[in-house]
């Protein structure tokens, strides 16, 4: 079941909860609603762990077509 839209006082109350001591608990709810929890549950393969000191994070610029070896 989808959560209802929040506005006005209800939205301000949620902001207050998220910014308060119960923020982590509120974030846990959002994680489920926003599809974050499901993505975090996807196991990573051994080669997928990103050692950030060795691999760029984010969409590294694609090579120009003339030199591109693979699309990604």
């Amino acid at each position, binding site marked *: 079941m*989808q*959560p209802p*839209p*929040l*506005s*006005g006082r209800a*939205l*301000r109350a*949620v*902001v207050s909860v*998220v*910014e308060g001591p119960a*923020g*982590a608990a509120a*974030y846990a709810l*959002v994680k489920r*609603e*926003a*599809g*974050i*929890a*499901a*993505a*975090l549950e*996807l196991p*990573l393969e051994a080669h*997928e*762990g*990103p050692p*950030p000191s060795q691999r760029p*994070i*984010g*969409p590294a*610029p*694609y*090579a*120009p*077509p*003339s030199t*591109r070896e*693979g*699309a*990604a």
Partner: protein
Amino acid sequence: MSTVSTLRERFRSGESTPAAEVERAIGALRHAASRGHATIRDGCFERAMREAEAATLRWKAGCPLGPFDGAPTAVKDECDVEGLPTRAGTVYRSALPVARDATAVARLRAAGAVVLGKTVQHELGLGATGISPHETKTPRNPHDPSRVPGGSSSGSAVAVAMGAIPFAVASDGGGSVRIPAALCGVWGLKPTWGRVPNTGDDNLNGTVGHLGPIARSVEDVAEFLAITAGHDGRCPVSEGSPDPDPAAWRRALTRGVKGLKIAVDDSEWADADPTVAFLCDEALRALEREGATRVKVKVPTARHAGGIGFVTMVAEAAMGHAEEWERHREVMSADVRLALSLGRLMSSREYLHMQALRQRLRREMAEALTGAELYATPTTAVAAPPLRPAAEVCGESDQASTNALVRFTFLGNLTGLPAGTAPVGRQGGHAPVGFQLTGRPWDEATVLAAMAAMERSGAARVEQPAVFYP
């Protein structure tokens, strides 16, 4: 308002002048604002009229500056325009004018475009609905004022859709060009990551933001790309990008889709509203009739793009706007404040996990686009959600609507691939639906070719909304 290409013909023939068209555009924007459809937050109408007079003289002398000479346009608030403030939809940023145009704006001006002002946007670009509780309020969807316009480039899309201007500058971190373009029934393009420099749009300082056009014709989308693309010597994102090929983009407009393979993941389409999926399927069938072939693919991680994108964009925004959150959160829209507050709670483990999934997504898309030139989905899973009056008090947080709006768009931001949206009809006769085509890296030409084929055949077209300024 016509398209730029038709304006150009009218300027050339003497049927109209830039001064007349810019004056008309200003009148339309003012009239719309007086009726609750404000799209311009900070205008520069006097300067625009001076520039339009100069453009008129150039056309009369037979020496226009470039393809956009005398064409009125407007720029998303977060993108710098010399002489106007850059407030990115906030109420707390300086109202002092900035000294320099963003690169894309400077290039458009050099081609003759006349900037009328800065468009209303979802605050800090952190929202897909376009709801703005500040000053100008939310620009109403011109097809149905009871619905949101889509965001974050809300004002840009509404100004174009209601015919006030032929094209506008927008930006896209999770769908912010494509979502409002789709919900307002016009064309939009998010180019390949790095194709158009981000210089002068500090809101695009993460790994997902792109500048792009919203327009009333595919030709104008192509021309915008031709004018704005290419490294500017300052933007790290566009460094190393291939040289722009305007001739290829212009040729693409007439090359058709014969022989093209268009990849479809049926399980993705199943998440769209049935009417939305139906209208998009009709557009795809039209492309098949023109010679394209539909091929089945699987992109398993695509269904997680929303979650991956949410963490990526919001965590980066929380970092990028950390000082603003500390100093100004009391006057932020509550939904934007909530997003930034959530971003502060995200862990490095979560962020890095999502970046690993993002690389997986890129590999899956590379595979899908090995046997096909394009990948097709609806642009959004639903048509424009309702605009509730309560949302204009301090904003609205509607996760269900947000999930549906970014369901298919985040893919392009996470992979950096070029993606365009085509207006393929209206749900219930008044809620536009967008059809998204994603291309291979740097291959905007094929995206444009398919969009132009749909425009030519009538499978996609800009329809006249309820609020319209011809």
